């Protein structure tokens, strides 16, 4: 399946793929170590000995090469008149619309990986107790601050 990039959506920073790669590698690391340990210690006498040691690292390497690019291609966001639109998801597709009027407060966060690869996340808090945050990851810090200021202006002009 080929992605059909929506011309209206804006892409996030290419550096975000590296953030995804490192995260994915960290997630796979534990699984790989566990699989190798099981294979070497428990499955030594069985006919499938060696399969896990080969297949799991192979799967890890393939997914680290393939997955981030696909996730990245399907990430997008857009500011329309009074809405923030956030699209993400490779296998499970999510398209979120947040009216500016409903925004309560805004965070720009940067973790260690974000700093390494020059990205930042914008977290939009809306009113409500359930699913009340919308996160746009992989923005450049300047862009994140810019979007924050735009939304904040709208919050101000709305006399709630």
């Amino acid at each position, binding site marked *: 399946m080929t992605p059909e990039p929506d011309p209206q959506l804006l892409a996030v920073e290419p550096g975000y793929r590296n953030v995804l790669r490192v995260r994915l590698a960290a997630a796979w690391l534990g699984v790989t170590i566990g699989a190798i340990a099981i294979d070497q210690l428990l499955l030594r006498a069985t006919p499938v000995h060696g399969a896990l040691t080969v297949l799991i690292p192979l799967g890890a390497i393939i997914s680290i090469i393939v997955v981030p690019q696909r996730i990245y291609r399907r990430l997008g966001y857009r500011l329309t008149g009074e809405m923030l639109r956030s699209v993400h998801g490779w296998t499970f597709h999510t398209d979120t619309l947040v009216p500016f009027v409903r925004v309560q407060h805004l965070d720009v*966060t*940067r973790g260690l990986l974000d700093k390494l690869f020059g990205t930042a996340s914008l977290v939009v808090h809306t009113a409500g107790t359930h699913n009340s*945050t919308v996160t746009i990851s992989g923005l450049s810090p300047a862009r994140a601050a810019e979007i924050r200021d735009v939304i904040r202006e709208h919050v101000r002009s709305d006399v*709630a």
Partner: protein
Amino acid sequence: MTRTDVTVGAAERLHPLYFLAELGGMLRQMAGGYAAIGYLAATGRWRMAALLLVVVSAATFVATFLHWRRFEYRVGAHEIRIDSGIVHRTHRSIPFDRIQDVDVSQGPVGRLLGIARVRFETGGSAGDKDDDGALAGITLARAEALRDLVRARRVMGGEVAASSASDAPDTPALFAMDLRRVLLGGVFNFSLAVIAGLFGVAQTIGDAAGFNFFKRRFWRQALEAGSPVIDLIMAHQVVAVLAGLVSLATIGLAAGVGRTVLRDFRFRLDRTANGLRRRRGLLTVTDVTLPIRRVQAAIIGSGPVRARFGWSELKLQSLAKDEGTRGDHVVAPLARDAEVASILSEFGWRFPERLLRGCDRPPLTPGALPLSEWSLPSRCSSRRRSSPGSLWAA
């Protein structure tokens, strides 16, 4: 795009001694470390225990210092910015228009040092951990200045153009509780949960620990031999059980009174320019302002015993959460109907006539009042009907 008009004030830090006021919470966080130290000490490895103590203390100190060093807040023209995080940085922006209320609270240590904890409640809640902007410790004067600033900004936002002169201390309180009322409220808060817990403990480990209220042995140890009570208990198991029940009831009562006095001591509700201001607390004093425009609903509640004596509790529901886990803001823990009615009239709501259901009142049209309440038939006594009817007039 619109970066040009972003005017943000100078960066401010927390009070250097803020961690003293937060000490209780920080000590709780290190509970695992203390357990390990205690274990080492108990098993005789004193040197390891001392080493671990030094390491844990040093780590706490360094972490606290770094947190303080990396925590900054700025007050801008239209927002408050909070930058926090040692490695994972968060730059939070809270527009004044979205601040539901500003809570100021002071623990016992904070009161000694003049440090207050400020929380900007916005109504968004992404998890209970740090959902909204909180400044752990700034001087009380600065906290009050901040609150006045937020309130003024909200007024400027085109809401209420009233003066804030009604904030003077000599204006009569909208609702206040003297010590007698607080104690009475404590009696009504008689804690069955504590009793149930103690009963369970007494039944399961009480025998081993030697404090089973329901056994004769406990009373033999607790009371000196020779008193008439001990002879009676020795004679009848029933009396021992009765004594046990009385003890549990006393403990439950003491727990209820103690908790209520700690929370509601010097309870005072004031009308401010555009909200209600509530102050209360014995050791931890909290100061909460709730903008009236943000009130979603009023809840008048009561209990079977309270209702019989004509008391009820008034809570207001807003987007913001009250301190602790409770969702609604208690604005009158124990009040007469007349007092509830006078508080409600502050924002132009009528005291709900539905409370007098079955007392030959005309039925209300549904949805006429933004109130949800529950009542008991006992409220319809003849005494209540003779209350002055003007209170419930529109």
